[in-house]
């Protein structure tokens, strides 16, 4: 199932992914897909826009590295502000998800 990731969620997923280790764009996309077992499929356009947005918001830092085959790759690292934001958003998300789950269970 392909789900276009809504903006806020995508930010959260990127931050979470980068909290493990610095990564480049494809790494992030692949990891999100793998961990979510294909529920979330990230297209490069949305991902790049989200990365630009997060970088401008100082939640992540981007840095160019040289790859072994002589091409440039951009690696992203979570900043301290980004970690704080991740904690806050993860908390909010969990709370909301739990609430939704409770609601659904109650109706069933």
């Amino acid at each position, binding site marked *: 199932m392909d789900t276009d990731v809504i903006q806020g969620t995508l930010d959260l997923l990127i931050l979470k992914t980068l909290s493990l280790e610095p990564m*480049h*764009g*494809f*790494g992030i*996309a*692949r990891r999100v897909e793998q961990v979510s077992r294909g529920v979330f499929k990230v*297209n*490069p*356009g*949305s991902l*790049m*826009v989200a990365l*630009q*947005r997060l*970088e*401008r*918001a*100082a939640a992540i830092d981007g840095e160019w590295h040289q*790859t072994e085959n002589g*091409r*440039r*790759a*951009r690696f992203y690292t979570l900043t301290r*502000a980004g970690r704080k934001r991740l904690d806050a958003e993860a908390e909010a998300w969990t709370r909301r998800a739990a609430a939704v789950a409770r609601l659904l269970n109650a109706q069933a």
Partner: protein
Amino acid sequence: MATPRTAWRTLTAGLRVLLRRDNADADVADELAHFATEAEAALIADGVSPDEARRRVRREYGDDTRVREQMRDAGWEESLALAVRDVGYAVRRLRRDASFTVVICATLALGIGATTAIFSAVNPVLFRPLPYPDANRLLAIADRSAAGAPLDVTFGTYRELASRARTVEAFAVFKPWQPTLLTGGSEPERLDGQRVSVAYFQALGVRPAIGREFLDEEDRPRGGAVVIISHGLWTRRFAGDPAVVGRQVRFDGYPFTVIGVMPAGFRVVQAPTAEAWAPLQYDPALPPDGREWGHHLRMIARLRRGVALAAAQRDIEEIATHPVIEFRRMPWAGLAQGLVVTPLQEEVVRAVRPALIAIAGAVLLVLLAACVNATSLLLARGAQRRGELAMRTALGAGRWRLIRQLVTESVVLACAGGAAGVVVAAAGVQALVVMAPAALPRVDAIRFDGAALAFAIAVSALVGIVIGALPAWQATRRDPHDGLQHAPRTVAGHRGARSVLVVAEVAVALVLLVVAGLLVRSLQQLFAVDTGFSSSHVLTLQVSAADRGADPVATRQFFERALAAVQVVPGAEAAGWTSQLPLSGDFDKYGAQVEANVAMDATADASALRYAVTPRYFDAMGIHLRRGRLLDDRDRAVAPVAVVVSESFVKHRLPGLEPIGQRLHLGRTDLPWYTIVGVVGDVRQASLATEGADAVYITTEQWFFADSVLSLAVRSSGDAASLAPAVRRAIWSVDPSEPIVRVSTLGALVAASAAERRFAAVILECFALVALVLAATGIYGVLSGAVTERLREMGVRAALGASRADLLALVFGQGMALAAIGVVLGAIGAVWAGHAITAMLFGISPLDTTTYVMVTVLLTIASAAACWAPAWRASRVDPVAMLRAD
């Protein structure tokens, strides 16, 4: 999330994209390429064949242009880039239509410039705090007359308040002082100054920059002659020498010790020209018949920190209404009506506020008219551009995109107009300052400054959006086919809107014309009042014999000899001294007690203007005798004292009595009674609008002290002004060291007394004229456009037998109908506006018929003139040519 860090990152990242677009694009391309490479490698690692992997990746990630666009749209820089492109396009377009651009810019420059200039004047005067620390804690306090009008306070009231009020940190009273300064070698100079109570500077919150303030023991009778001078006087007369403090200077012939110099920016808002301050030195024992109980002091107070205005008002009111035994009050200063407590800022601008607000309202109407005119022109232009817009729509531009482009154009126009407007405003501010009447407070604060510039920019941006919105809406409204297929011929939509705008312009013009007309008519009425004297051919000037100081004999002698010298000047018909001149700002009153009516005098306002004059003063001024005799050479120092009173005095103080032979006291009550020997007509003293107050005339010789400053009135057989040099020489032939000031003709004094009204009237006249021209061009523009669009229709009408007169009447009628609607709507606004300025009118009703009739006639003529050319063109249409052209 807008921390400085994110703002900085957003800014720099955006700027990098804007400035190095190629680099930014290359970055995106590289990142995507890397993405693709990795994706391909991942697929291969998952067991997909390399060819298949490449194909899949290309299918999914191939289009990096789209990604680039997505990223661009997400950043702020793209909106900016778009705006820059729109501005560039707008500038190119506007340059192509140079005449259109110039007309709109000029219109807007006038509107924005005038508005900004008026803002520069109104903002500091009405809204900027007074130039003192914590200026909002400053109050002005006045006594209240039996009639409820504000009245100067007495020293007694000041003493009582100063010891009883708990909410006030410092009280101070002051009165004007005009000493003559003599410094060795240079010419004597009459200064404006103030006599002030001890805590004056403490109340204002400003300390001397050099030296010290007054001490308590200096503000007592015989407390020593000390003076504090302004920074201006210090640099002008004492070369900015700090050693002047402690030195003695001669004021009015007395040695004064300079004890302080005020800082450079210090100015007294209630007396901007004051340059020297000396202690009041009134008697704290408050003798009942002394000057301590005269209503001639103005009072200010500084609230304690944290005390609200209302609390202070209650406190002071409480004191006024609850006399205590320790503080005796005179019957005329019993505070029975309470005291008037107002913020000082309000008090300073009270007199000019209505005029300034009227002017500000008027200038907004001018700006409105300019905007309406510009909108109308843009509407017409929008109709002509429908082809272009339809083309862009067909090429995929959305409606909002087009509106944005069009509004950008109007904002560019408005900014160009605003830039020219700034020049207009800077010149306008200069003109305002030059024209400003002397009584306008805080003129020194009026300048074209940063606030004015910011205002001009804000107004320009706002005007750009306002004038652009409607035309952009209209122009982008139609279906694209319509515009592409046939050229504008029968486009009528915008004309409806333009007609509405023309009506608005006429209405605005009518309102402004009526207001200006009412003010001008008020001025006429004002100058038509009977002043009580004849102002032509009279020269006036003021001479100070202050250098003779305390010697009354020498003072009287000097004035006597100077008068004798003036009387033999060729061309001088009659000359006389007076202690105060009408309409010159002099206002000198003394308590008057009438023998026959002593009981009445105790409560009512018993003061009368005191004129100490020489006998020929009445002839020089042309003041009319009503009963009895004038003062003459019989009324010498040794003779029984004779006085002449005004008609108002008789009416108020001696109702139903034969005035001649009645006796009165003026000022001092311990002297023999003065006998009334004659009655003269009332003279307008304070202003043309103030009807004659009670007045008592006495000869200078019989008055109980020698005034050291007298004004001279000389009636000349020819031009009064040309007599001035000879009169001056005559006075100086007696003593060349006495300063002669305020040289003016009586006519000029009369004119100057209405300077504030004239100021407002002249400005309103200018505004009304501009609005009239805008309305006329508006009518012309709409009709002219309508005729161009309807030429074919006119041709058909002509072909069907309409005569030239018919066509003329058709167009003419259309234009005049618009004007008529505008006049009717404007009249409604004018009634309201006239009502709002009632306080500024004199002698006429706000519904003055003459004004309304004249204004309507003027507008009709202007409208008819504007209709004429288009109507004429319509009537000349050649039906054959017109029909063939199709």
